[in-house]
C-alpha cells in the first residue's frame, strides 16, 4: 500500500504532530501510515482524508 499523506500534509503545512492531533491518533501512527506500513481503519482513513481536505481514494493507493 502506498499513501500520499506526506504530500497532502506538506501542501497544508501541517506537521505529523498536528495531523495526529486533528485525527485523534498518535504521531507514530501517522509515521507508519505515511510509510505505508499500517492499514488504517475506515474511520481513521476517513478522518485523515477529511483533515487533509481530500478523499480516501486520493490518499491511499492499493
Amino acid at each position, binding site marked *: 500500500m502506498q499513501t500520499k499523506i506526506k504530500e497532502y500534509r506538506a501542501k497544508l503545512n501541517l506537521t505529523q504532530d498536528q495531523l*495526529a492531533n486533528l485525527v*485523534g491518533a498518535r504521531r507514530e*501512527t501517522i509515521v507508519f501510515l505515511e510509510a505505508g506500513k499500517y492499514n488504517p481503519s475506515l474511520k481513521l482513513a476517513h478522518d485523515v482524508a477529511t483533515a487533509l481536505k481530500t478523499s480516501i481514494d486520493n490518499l491511499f493507493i492499493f
Partner: protein
Amino acid sequence: MTLKKYQKIKLAITIVLAIIFSQSIIYKNYLIPLATLIIASLGLILLRRQVKEVIADERDYLNAGKSAGLAIQVYSWVAVVAMFVLYAFRDLNPAYEPIAMTLAFSTCLLMLTYSLIFKFQNKTKFSQNKKTFIVLIIILAIFASIFTIDYFPEKTIGFVKMVNG
C-alpha cells in the same frame, strides 16, 4: 501535562510499587502492597485525565490485542509443559503436585476468562443485549470461584503446612 511526563511518572510509580511489593513480601505484610496498588491506580487515573495528547489509538489497541493473544498462548504452553513435568516428578517432592494443579487451573481459568471476554466483546459490539451477557458471566465467575475455592483449601493448607514443616 504532556504524554512524556505522564509516561515518566508512570514508570517511577511502577518502580516504587515494585520496591514496596518486594519489601512487603519479605516482611510478610500484604496490606501495604494492596493499599499502595489502589492509591497508585487512582493516582494514575487522575494523571491520565490531565494528559491532553492522545495516549493510545487504534494501532496500539490492535497491537495490544495481538500481544495479549500471544502472551496467553505462551503462558498456556509453558504452564502445561511445566505442569506435566512437575506432575511426573511428584514422587520426588510432594509439593510438586499442588504446584502442577495450580498451574493447570490457572491456565484453564485464563482460557475461560479469555473466551468469555472474547464472546462478550463479539456479541455486545453488535447488539444492545449487554445485560444478559453480564449476568451470564457473573454466574459463570461465581461457579468458577466456588469450584476453585472448594478444590484449593486442602491443597493450599496442605502445601503451607508442608512448607512450614
